[in-house]
């Protein structure tokens, strides 16, 4: 978990370079601390290591995909409480349902304006802090 009073740490996971860059740059611009991962395995390592406040998880990833990575995060004691926002270019409802099943708190369809994504991140952070207060 990040230090108190520090800006929230967002882990942006996307195998596409510009995908990571757009959201990472915008969130940093907006004052968040940002870490990035290009595949599922890296995402897991970074998550366990950095304990981000929220994770933006692209679902179509090489190797361990976004659904599998989320499932593992939700199975691990250390990362279970971190909200995961699924990011996907899949427009089909089935992809969204599957994401919620493995533990994603929200699903955002690409293309997504960075501004809208920031709003969702803030919503999740607010929800997570409420939950943390509820369970000290």
């Amino acid at each position, binding site marked *: 978990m990040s230090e108190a009073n520090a800006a929230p740490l967002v882990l942006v996971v996307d195998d596409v370079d510009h995908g990571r860059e757009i959201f990472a740059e*915008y969130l940093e611009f907006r004052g968040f601390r940002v870490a990035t991962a290009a595949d599922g395995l890296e995402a897991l390592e970074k998550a366990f290591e950095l304990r981000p406040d929220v994770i933006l998880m692209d679902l179509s990833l090489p190797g361990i995909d976004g659904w599998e990575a989320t499932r593992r995060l939700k199975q691990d004691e250390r990362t279970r409480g971190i909200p995961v926002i699924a990011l996907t270019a*899949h427009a089909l409802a089935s992809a969204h349902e599957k994401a919620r099943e493995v533990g994603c708190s929200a699903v955002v369809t690409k*293309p997504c304006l960075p501004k809208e994504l920031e709003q969702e991140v803030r919503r999740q952070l607010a929800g997570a802090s409420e939950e943390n207060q509820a369970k000290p």
Partner: protein
Amino acid sequence: MGSKAKLGLVEALLAEQEARSCAVLTLRWLARDAGIERAMCAMVDGESGRLEGWTGMGLSLAAVESFSLDLADRTHPLIIALDGGEPIAFRDSGQSLPRPFETPLGNSPFYAIPLAGARNAPGSGLLLVSSGESPLLEDVLWAAELLGTRLAALQYHRAQIDDRRHKRERTWLLSIINAVTDPILLTDVDGRILIANAGAERLLTTEEDRSEGRRRAVALNNMLFSATLFNSGAGNKSQELVLVDPSEGQELLFEVLRAPVRLRPGESGLVSVLRNVTDLRRASEEIEENYRRLRAAEAATRAERDRLDLILNSVFDPVLVTDPEGKIMRMNPPAERMFTVPAGRGGEVERRVRVNDAVFTSFVSNLYAGQSQLWRGELNLLDPETGAPAPFEAFSGKVLSKQGEQTAAVTILHDLTEALEKAQLYEQVKHHSEELKERVREATAELAEQNELLRRQAFQLEQASAMKSQFLANVSHELRTPLNAIMGYTHLLLEGVSGEMSRAQRDKLARVDANARHLLAVINDLLDIARIESGKMPLQVDRVRLPELIDEVMSEVEPVIAGTRLEVSRILSPELPEIETDRQKVKQIVLNLLSNALKFTPDGSVTIRLDHDCDAGEIWIAVSDSGIGIAEENQKTIFEAFEQANSSYARRQGGTGLGLSICRRLADLLDGRITLVSKLGEGSTFTLFLPCKPRSA
């Protein structure tokens, strides 16, 4: 008169042996030698007890012969004269007498001179001589005495001869009747037995010293016999009489034949002949018994035969009984049908019957020839009526007597026609069944092939469908990813992440952003159409309140409305029912229709009307505008993809050209429809009709 004349008469009478001739001779002598003109001789007949006219002279023969006096008539002057024994002179036979009478001599004086001895004695009689006025001559008296004496002598002599002869005849008669074994009896009117032959005596008489039983038997027999005598009455009809044999004690049956006889004048008797019919009766009874038994046996046989006939006739199959020569002795009606010619039929029928007979006889001869008791075979007969082949299965059995002789054969024929027909039918059925089986097999194989093909096709279709879906997903994904970059970077630049830009740069970036958004809308709409068409658009049916839904839509487009000068209103019918439908889809349609109305109405008003028709089971939402309207020629194609009535205008308004196409597809999906009423330049009304209940409900 001379003695010579008298001597002549004496000689003549002595020479004559016959009494009546003597009388005739005497009368003739009186006429010739004593001058008597008329005279008559009457003689007593002991048998009849009468005085009868015998012979006359100078008199009517008929008068003489009819002369007859009853000796019992003792007051008659002539009978008195006869009994007196002295000659009596009668002046006449008429008025002078106390009792007048007639004689053949007529009504002239005459003498009545009794002949010979006393009344009833042999030779008794009366000589009547007419005398005129003259006194009776001595010669007449002499002649009368002579004739009386001679007649008496003749009478006595004859009586002696008769007596001897009677005795002899009686002996003979007794011998004769005794020789007859049947009892013969003569009885008088009182039933007293006058004569009985030996046979009768044996039954009806006994000596005193005989046994008590015998006496009793005889007494009983007498009683029984007497009873029959008096029961028989008149007539000589035969009667039956049971007597007891006094010696043996057994009963004897007699048939009694009777004949009345005259015993003497005025007294009749009865001859009874008893014919012993005991043995005859026994024999007759035996015969009768035998006959009865025979009849009973015959009746039993007949009954048995009738029963046999009944049994035979009740058998449906032909049954025949044949003698050892193979000749048919009996048969039942079914057999008769095959082996007899009906009355009045001949020709072909007769010929066929003969054929049948020959076939049958030949078959039965096999049985007689063989050693076995039974013989089985098949006979191909002909139906006598139709000539159709009549196949029969025949079973023959020998009928043996107790001595083991073959007395007959019984044959039962079983009609094979039906069996053969059944067999044929069975073959046909089997054949058809085989054919059917073959067809079923073929059909099954074909079906299996078809199934396989279908399965493969289904698999291919499924695969194709899956591939299509996957393709769509991929296309969508692949389009969205670069679009995300375009929109993302544009946004970064516009947000000033990379520093401030000039106004011209910002304007151009805004154009990029707008086109990227349009592209995204198009991609989303295309994806919707694809999903609907591939059946991947799931329906979530809920109870929906349309007024609430319209409120939601209105609030969503509120920012758009606020940017126009349009007057937007709602008209809701009261008591609208809830409907069961997919809320999201309905909302999408209404949103689309309302967006279109707002887009294509530069100024004026937009109205949403909500109403229903319970009878038609429909509820509808009508969106009317006072906008640009749609030309009639475009109204049909407006619902097709990428069709916009006014393309340039539409593009300016940011439509994808897919909205109405999606709306119509969604309406179909919800079992509803969308109609359009419009006039160019005057506005349009799009109406969504929905069923109150979904089809599946």
